[in-house]
């Protein structure tokens, strides 16, 4: 009998309580000693050949006869009132089939009190009108024929300016989300903590707006079948898009089908329905033709989301022996015109170290810049940069080994709730990483002319436990193959591969005999958003439960056919074996015998364990070379050690680590969206001026996985791997830069300009007597704080 329980689900640093319907017959976790054939082994990517040969059908590849192309007219101004829109000329352009503006679109509420097409535009790139035409080129030409009259309004793009009471208001309710107090967390007694500290450090950190730059933009194709909408879209949450689009259009849920079979990444920016999907659906309805919407890279960079830029004021009090006595963070996240306050910048300060007195004040502030969106470990990447830069500074200041300082403050229990961790092998990650990186040898100054080599490290903490609801269905075909059907989506991480491995392991079939369906709300039951590193730990157990149910049914049939007890049967490689008496029969023989009577296994993700905290952990060590004369920074090596519980597939988890580090290097050294303060418009919404790392910027990446099942977290013992690898990279690189050049850059990205400015400041300081001159002598470390 199913029953309803309450379960705690962690999502991107936020804890949510959910009701979960669970079946009592729980699947027992695979133990650490369990001998597994398929899970835990490298398995080539399901669909990989299709992807690399161009055979995969991405949203952009969907071609439907009669399909129109949509282009969106966007605001050129950061803040204005739309006085009038004249579409007459555009309508007359040959090939234009429909034009949508606030005048003829339904008044659909979008983002609080505004509308799909709002009377006010709040950033450069805000949607003003949309055109559907026979070709993209015609649609684009038509945009120029739409005449919009604006009344320009004062704007603000700087978050600290936006917090002032007299700042221009982006939304009526004020610029600071949740009111001027911000989001406050406190434990212990902060002032007492500082009073009992021997040293107090206080610094300002800044992190930039980084663009997600998914290979595939926010694109979609909308088609109506009678009164049913079919929507192909690039999304991290097919079900979320279904629900959001249905709500916007006033449709019942069974009238919307969302399809996303292959996807070119989201990194957090595609977590639910977007305006573009509703616009395409409305234009398809208006024109009675399928409509394809494919934004340009410029549009994507203007309106597709960015990582929240932050300003962080961090104060730390420590005892002489390095014990943290107090931590106080005041963070300001610029969420742009329509971002949300979901960025937990204070997360690392609250939960990484054992510190009794902590206060975090998080402010999320609207500005007239392009909207922020969750971006791979939102908040934690930014917060970790500040906290781990500070820890490094404290260590050098106290003449302590930075790694030792972290161990002095190691949290055995979750410092926020006092709960025990389901597992916490962070100390092991530190040790393994230190050994791999040669941490203990780093003190030897390495200089090659102006080039100085340095090593830095940083820690990682993040959720990734997943949780219900998540479902899967397995159907056995008469030839012994199986269809695994889920409502999840593979956003490029290898979800399909991993789920097939789990199903094959539990069912005893060969992986190639299982076909998986993802990304179709019509086919698969509910699956959660692929975000918060929760896909594998949510979907994996559901798939395993479905496979177990199918296996049990299969074995009970086999036992009848073989005339042996079901308990003596096992399946491997598609062969059912009985121990006493010794008999074998192929799965296909059993299924063929029952013909079209189908075995259908259904599985659900069970609740999370009560009273334990499920977290992922890790440490990264970065080695850099800094040219102290030209300011060149080269990352020469990154060592990463992470704990994701049981590794299902070392190939896909390795890809996540490498991808996270590559993105982390971009964040650390070069990526930055620039908004012109004078005009409030974006200056580098392209891939020429906005720099992402090239292959030459990527060093040797060495990684190790703890690979130990976390048996209390779920039945497969796995935690998510998507976000953790990007969390410590920038902090580790910043600390390595300090180790190499003696300059601490507290503002990302660490560019040549900033390095040269900091080295210039060093040169101005008087040289201590008895030491060799030079801008960044290895042993001459500036003492700050």
């Amino acid at each position, binding site marked *: 009998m199913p029953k309803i329980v309450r379960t705690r689900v962690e999502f991107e640093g936020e804890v949510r309580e959910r009701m979960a319907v669970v079946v009592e017959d729980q699947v027992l976790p695979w133990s650490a000693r369990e001998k597994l054939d398929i899970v835990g082994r490298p398995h080539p990517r399901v669909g990989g050949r299709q992807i690399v040969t161009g055979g995969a059908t991405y949203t952009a590849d969907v071609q439907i006869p009669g399909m129109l192309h949509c282009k969106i007219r966007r605001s050129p101004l950061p803040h204005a009132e739309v006085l009038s829109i004249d579409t007459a000329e555009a309508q007359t352009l040959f090939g234009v089939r429909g034009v949508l503006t606030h005048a003829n679109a339904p008044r659909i509420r979008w983002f609080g009190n505004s509308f799909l097409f709002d009377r006010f535009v709040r950033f450069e790139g805000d949607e003003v009108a949309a055109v559907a035409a026979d070709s993209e080129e015609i649609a684009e030409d038509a945009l120029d024929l739409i005449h919009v009259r604006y009344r320009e309004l004062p704007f603000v793009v700087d978050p600290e300016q936006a917090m002032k009471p007299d700042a221009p208001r982006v939304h009526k309710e004020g610029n600071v989300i949740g009111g001027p107090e911000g989001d406050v967390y406190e434990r212990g007694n902060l002032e007492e903590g500082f009073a009992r500290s021997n040293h107090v450090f206080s610094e300002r950190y800044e992190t930039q707006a980084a663009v997600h730059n998914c290979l595939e933009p926010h694109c979609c194709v909308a088609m109506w079948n009678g009164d049913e909408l079919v929507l192909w879209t690039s999304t991290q949450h097919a079900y979320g898009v279904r629900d959001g689009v249905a709500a916007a259009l006033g449709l019942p849920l069974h009238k919307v089908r969302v399809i996303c079979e292959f996807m070119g990444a989201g990194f957090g920016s595609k977590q639910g329905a977007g305006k573009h999907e509703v616009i395409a659906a409305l234009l398809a309805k208006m024109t009675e033709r399928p409509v394809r919407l494919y934004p340009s890279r410029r549009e994507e960079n203007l309106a597709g989301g960015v990582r929240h830029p932050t300003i962080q004021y961090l104060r730390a009090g420590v005892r002489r022996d390095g014990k943290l006595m107090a931590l106080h963070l005041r963070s300001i996240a610029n969420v742009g015109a329509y971002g949300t306050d979901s960025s937990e910048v204070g997360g690392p300060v609250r939960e990484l170290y054992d510190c009794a007195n902590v206060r975090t004040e998080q402010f999320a502030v609207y500005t007239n810049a392009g909207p922020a969106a969750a971006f791979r470990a939102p908040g934690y990447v930014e917060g970790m940069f500040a906290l781990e830069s500070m820890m490094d500074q404290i260590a050098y200041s106290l003449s302590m080994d930075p790694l030792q300082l972290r161990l002095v403050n190691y949290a055995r229990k979750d410092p926020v709730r006092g709960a025990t961790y389901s597992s916490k092998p962070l100390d092991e990650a530190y040790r393994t990483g230190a050994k791999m990186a040669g941490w203990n040898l780093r003190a030897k100054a390495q200089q090659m002319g102006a080039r100085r080599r340095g090593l830095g490290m940083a820690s990682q903490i993040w959720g990734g436990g997943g949780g219900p609801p998540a479902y899967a269905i397995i159907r056995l075909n008469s030839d012994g193959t199986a269809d695994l059907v889920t409502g999840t989506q593979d956003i490029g991480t290898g979800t399909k591969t991993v789920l097939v491995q789990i199903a094959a392991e539990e069912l005893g079939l060969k992986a190639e005999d299982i076909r998986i369906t993802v990304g179709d709300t019509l086919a698969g039951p509910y699956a959660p958003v692929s975000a918060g590193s929760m896909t594998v730990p949510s979907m994996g157990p559901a798939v395993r439960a479905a496979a177990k149910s199918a296996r049990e049914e299969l074995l009970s049939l086999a036992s009848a056919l073989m005339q042996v007890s079901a308990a003596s049967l096992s399946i491997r490689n598609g062969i059912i074996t009985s121990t006493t008496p010794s008999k074998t029969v192929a799965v296909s023989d059993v299924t063929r015998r029952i013909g079209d009577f189908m075995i259908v296994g259904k599985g659900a993700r069970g609740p999370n364990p009560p009273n334990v905290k499920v977290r992922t952990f890790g440490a990264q060590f970065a080695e850099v070379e800094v040219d102290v*004369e030209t*300011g060149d920074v080269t990352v020469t090596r990154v060592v990463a050690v992470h704990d994701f519980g049981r590794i299902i597939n070392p190939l896909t988890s390795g890809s996540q680590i490498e991808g996270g580090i590559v993105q982390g290097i971009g964040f650390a050294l070069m990526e930055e969206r620039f908004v012109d303060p004078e005009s409030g418009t974006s200056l580098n919404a392209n891939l020429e001026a906005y720099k992402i790392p*090239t292959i*030459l910027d990527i060093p040797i990446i060495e990684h190790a996985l703890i690979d130990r099942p976390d048996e209390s977290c779920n039945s497969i013992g796995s935690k998510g791997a998507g976000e953790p690898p990007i969390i410590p990279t920038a902090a580790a690189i910043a600390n390595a830069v300090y180790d190499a050049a003696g300059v601490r850059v507290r503002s990302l990205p660490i560019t*040549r*300009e900033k390095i040269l400015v900091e080295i210039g400041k060093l040169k101005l300081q008087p040289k201590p007597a008895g030491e060799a001159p030079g801008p960044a002598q290895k042993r001459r470390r500036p003492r700050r704080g």
Partner: protein
Amino acid sequence: MRAFDYVDATSVEDATTFLQDEADSALIAGGTELLVLMKNKVINPRLLINVKSIDGLHRIRADGEGSLTIGSVATIAELGSDEVVQRSFPILADAIRVAASPQLRNMATVGGNLCQKPRCWYYRGSFDCFLKGARGCHALNGQNRGSGIFGRSECYAVNPSDLAPPLVALGASVVIQSPQGRKQISLADFFTLPRGELLNQTILGRDEMVVEVRIPKQPHRSRGVFLKAMERKTWSFAQASVAMQLSRSDDRIEDVRIVLGAIAPIPWRATAAEDALRARALTRQLIEVASAAAVEGAHPSGDNRYKVTLVRELVKRGLSALLNT
């Protein structure tokens, strides 16, 4: 992009006649620059004149006596793989190796590279500025990390060409043709500070086209260096670059050209540094003097201050590399 007509020119005369007849026209060769400007609606020509169709215009010819003539639609990749370039003008080959990406080098042409527009974000964006016939410079008080530190006029945008500094350092000249005829001028004189009515970084007239680039024979024992600093390891325009070519006789520097890239609206001759070096023997001490002289008179405007340090270091490194050759 606005609709346009397209013709294949059959000869240089043909191309320049089209230029003369249709004021709203542009030459197209590789298209790596022009098409981007058109897509961003910075320029909207009615007529595109393809010059890749002109017979022989892509040819690279060595005269066997040390000089080289490069047809203006030779691709940058072709130039980079030319044996004479690699042997006799290595600074040019070095510059090509770090210019753009292999795909772009396969398409982009030498003439197009010399005529390219600045990468200034404001010029390329939807801002009216001096180069577009309006007044003022947004970069001056805006985002100016890429702006110039020398040769300021009414525009602060730097010349982005990776080929221009080494070519000027090699003493190259260009052959320009219009319906009125041909002329050859030094490449250094081809570039000019935009000012007054001249909204461009070159002197190229409306109906003129670059036909050839000529590199003269270098003096005996001439050596050169090209260095480029970027925001990442490859596939970027320069933050600053330096091309230098130097010849010595009895250990004294005879002939020297030091050309700085991406720090002025034109390839910038560091004449004070050259003067400091000429007729002297290259020593560490002299290198310090010359590299300091290279940034004399620099006037950064804000976020581009780092360029002063950077240029000085690049010059110092370039000269140091020549110290023992």
